[in-house]
């Protein structure tokens, strides 16, 4: 593991990063040092995306990923990497965002005072919520929902149909009748869905 350690050291602030994101360096009981490989792998990917070697990514770099153009909400997801006002993503942020998609650690000991891990169910849902809630007011308004629906539905669906779907969707989820979906309502409506499975990438374990 000597070579991996030396590669790791080249990545700035790697210990802080690993602690924050939960990608552990220490060997756990059942698996050998798998995780450092992930950080290295992500770093390689980061460097590959950052074609001009600037040390950070801009939207254009994400735009160059051809498969993302094939994704109806691809551009929104690109947007999620960039904090409001910032136009670049450094490696630290890159990994932090991707760490949302680590599978949930089922056997993590519950420490009462530690902050919730970044890949907890709640944080995954927050990530998804932010994709809908573009103006970051903590609620999904009808308009925002319409935009998402429009992006995800084929062109054959007419506007009236779209509106009808949006109305019903809000009706189903909106408990306090304010015609918007707050994060709590969002979370509640998705109780039955296995978020851990649907929003996890296995190789980020």
């Amino acid at each position, binding site marked *: 593991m000597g070579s991996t350690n030396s590669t790791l050291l080249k990545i700035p602030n790697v210990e802080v990063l690993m602690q924050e994101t939960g990608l552990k360096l220490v060997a756990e009981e059942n698996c*050998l040092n798998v995780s450092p*490989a992930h950080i290295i792998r992500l770093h390689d990917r980061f460097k*590959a*995306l950052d074609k001009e070697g600037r040390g950070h990514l801009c*939207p254009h770099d*994400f735009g160059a990923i051809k*498969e*993302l153009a094939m994704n109806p909400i691809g551009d929104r997801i690109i947007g999620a990497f960039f904090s409001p006002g910032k136009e670049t993503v450094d490696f630290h942020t890159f990994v932090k965002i991707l760490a949302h998609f680590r599978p949930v650690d089922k056997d993590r000991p519950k420490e009462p005072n530690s902050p919730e891990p970044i890949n907890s169910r709640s944080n995954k849902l927050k990530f998804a919520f932010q994709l809908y809630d573009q103006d970051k007011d903590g609620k999904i308004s009808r308009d925002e929902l319409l935009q998402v629906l429009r992006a995800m*539905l084929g062109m054959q669906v007419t506007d009236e149909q779209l509106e009808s779907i949006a109305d019903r969707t809000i009706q189903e989820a909106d408990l306090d009748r304010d015609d918007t979906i707050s994060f709590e309502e969002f979370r509640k409506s998705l109780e039955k869905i296995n978020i851990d499975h649907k929003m996890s990438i296995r190789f980020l*374990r």
Partner: protein
Amino acid sequence: SKLSSVFSLSLSLYPVIELNHHVISVVPESGLLIILGFILGGIVWGADKAQTFKLLPPTFFYYLLPQIILDASYFMPNKLFFSNLGSILIYAIFGTCWNAATVGLSLWGCYEAGVMGNLDIGLLQFLLFGSLIAAVDPVAVIAVFEEVHVNEVLFILVFGESLLNDGVTVVLYNVFDAFVALGGPRIDAEEIFKGIFSFVVVAFGGSFLGVVFAVLLSLLTRCTKHIQIIEAGFVFVVGYLAYLTADMLSLSAILSVTFCGICCQKYVNANMDEKSVTTVRHAMKVLANGSETMIFVFLGITAIDTEIWVWNTGFILLTLLFVFIYRIIGVFLLTWMLNKFRLVPIEVIDQVVMSYGGLRGAVAYGLAAMLDKDKIPEKNLIISTTLIVVYFTVILQGITMKPLVQWLKVKRAAHADLKLIEKLNNRAFDHILSAVEDICGRIGDNWWTRGWNRFEENYISWLLMKPKARKNRDYLFSIFHKLNLEDAVNYVSEGERQGSLAFIRSDEVANVDFKKQFGSEFTDVMPDIMVDMSNYELGIENFSVTSIVKDTIPSVSLDIHGKDRKNVADDINAHHLLQQHLYRSRKNHRHKFSRSHFSINQSEDEVQEIFQRTMRSRLESFKSAKMGVNPAKKITKHHKKDLTHKMANGHPDGTDHLYGDEEVEGLSMFLSCLIEAGIENPVFLPAMDSPTHSSLPWLMETDAVAPSQRAQWRLLWTPNRLRRLAPMRVSTCSTDSFLMADLEEHEEKPQTDHEEEM
């Protein structure tokens, strides 16, 4: 005569079976074919009182098997295969050895315990039997997994294992055959060492030979520019040659063909004419399907023969038991070890499917039939047992495989009635997940793959690919990118020189003419979408009729039941709409390995649509950010409109900033996307005279671009039907273009000068 009559009979029954999809979905095709073989065998036996049709090993090994293997390897997903190669090798080598050893030894143990009665058989013969029954069969695996759609990693593990274990099987078989001939006492360490050494030679020799033939094939196709009509034939001839040569040299023939197919794929597809590529694919499928059919039918026919059947309850039942159990144990053991080293661990469910999918097939039978009766007196018993094992795995396990997979999957995903919001979010999560996977780069960009890619690009492709094909790979886009960058800078400076409003005030419309680009296939899907620029400035308010009508519907209705009815109907409608029209995520598009279909992406229209919408929205947001106009603000109110203005609506302030300051990069990005979308904006076009305009080669519908483009880019990122990438890069300064340089080699100089300027 008889042969032809039987075959015509069987082939005519085949479509009848195919028509009954319900049957097919329960019983795998291979099972049905075996049963058909029983029937036919019964007919022939009834007529002749003896089985005159047998599957002779030479027929099988020389005429029926090679094309199946060639087909499998030609369509092998290489990236997936090589990224899992380590695991596949472990399963193939150690798994097969484990199976052979344990089955052979256990049976011998039981024999010594007296369970099987009196047989003229010894330890070595048991081991020989173990080695021929151990191998998982590629034909059977393809046939059964056809019906069961498992995830791609699982499929490649089982399938790869079935292909690569031939190396081990052949060696073990030959070694034990030789040992049996030598006799027990003469086996010593030297012989065992020879055996291991022969494994190395056979396996690596076979693979190396395959690679040699792949290189030969690629070089051949590189030089066939003037004999395009027969270049398709070369693939089959050289493939078969690889098989025969390996067999002649006593190397592993299956491995040879496998690696020939795997290595030549890319170059052959790039070098050959589009039509030849299509020809090869179709012919390959025909041959492979035909052979497979015949193999299974023959397997059935061979059963109806009183001569070969020797029944020994203990032997047969114990064999079945051991084969089944040791497969499960072997898989779980190996996987436990592998999971320590794999980045993506193999789950328990996958392991169950893998062990259950260890099907034996015709290869085992062929090897059994090749046994020498003199040296192995119990040959008939072995053949009978092999046949029964084959029938058991193919028919029984084949039938129960699909229900098993479904049952296991159902345990993980609840299929309760989902509400609208759940359905919507389910799909959204799928999209999010595939996007994040794409961002992470699923295969991984580690040093090895990048190093290999560089090496391959620079040296191997140079050798094996036609220069034109090579040039047209990614060079196309990187050069476009650079040239468009320059255009973009010119454009912006031009626009700013004339005042930024020049762009907006133009009364011209930017014609997004998808029809022109993608041909008539998409006219019904993709209407001409016109972006009317003047609207942004003047803020024209367009209402649609329906919006007015909707506003006049009273919100309070006295007809309570009517409202309920309407609600229910609306509810059903909404669910139905979501079901029908939600875009499928790319996860669902993944490789569905199939004997009969080889188009990877079934819903090209949908992908097309998404791609174009994304590009348009990027264009919109870029323009609005660049030109200081924010159409989003103006048009939010008017979202009840026709589709054309939808995209403008899609980007509130947050994302506008996205493309703000990275002027050049942003421009080049959307311009490069525009290139694919075929946008003709008169603002872009220079003031050129029409004659010059029409004489520009890239504006003519010629086959200037290497026609096998399509073959090259089967993958998703560019639509399949893109016949020509119309380079809308129209330079104001010179007429040099990438394509022109392509047509006339001596004009490359101006292009390289251009590049050097960057």
